[in-house]
């Protein structure tokens, strides 16, 4: 029988913008994850919040100022932002 290692908690601050910031009433939120959790997991957790007004397909995640793939594992110190539909120009 193996002893499961308890997951290492990883809490990350996530930046919010535009309609998402307005929906949450703040420009960043702490998100409780576990070490090894991915971008896709982070988006699931944030968008499961009842304040979230957008669907997963409408929100991209940026890590350290670049769009990130869903399978990227997050690390302590990453700058993470949720990017709702953009409207520059």
């Amino acid at each position, binding site marked *: 029988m193996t002893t499961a290692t308890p997951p290492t908690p990883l809490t990350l601050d996530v*930046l919010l*913008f*535009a*309609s998402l910031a*307005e929906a949450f009433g703040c420009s960043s939120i702490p998100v409780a994850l576990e070490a090894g959790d991915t971008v896709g997991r982070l988006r699931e957790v944030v968008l499961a919040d009842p304040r979230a007004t957008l669907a997963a*397909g*409408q929100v*991209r995640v*940026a890590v350290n*100022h*670049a*769009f990130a*793939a869903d399978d990227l594992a997050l690390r302590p110190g990453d700058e993470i*932002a949720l*990017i*709702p*539909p*953009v*409207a*520059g*120009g």
Partner: protein
Amino acid sequence: MTPIGLVRAPIDAAALLAAVASPGHGATALFVGTVRDHNDGRPVTGIEYSAYEPMAVLELERIAGEARDRFSVAVAIQHRLGTLGLGEASVVIAVAHARRAPALDALGYVVEELKRRVPIWKREHYADGSRAWVAATVPTPETITEPLVAQPEVR
């Protein structure tokens, strides 16, 4: 003037033209995006622009770099933030090349990629006093990696 960047004061299109000028260029293409007085049938009185600023600057620089690589053009891009009135320029893009075709193709590429990828948002102000976020484009992996403007076929 920074050739690529975000600004809070009115954009000087002549300065962008000067930034891409070179004696070897025979064609300079200029795009000016301005605040329009209507959207989807509603009278608009102004637009408020905001951005995830450090990433927006990097994304503008990446797009400019792609345009240089693909089309061998000189590029200048400025996007304005803050509240703009009708007719004010929200974005100015200048692209220059020896000849017109690459200049025009590169200009189209930069405009479309900017609209797809750069984390900038706008909230329209309407004549009735209400405001709404404009959800223009969802950036997707496809739109980030695929060139929007087809490259000319080499025969």
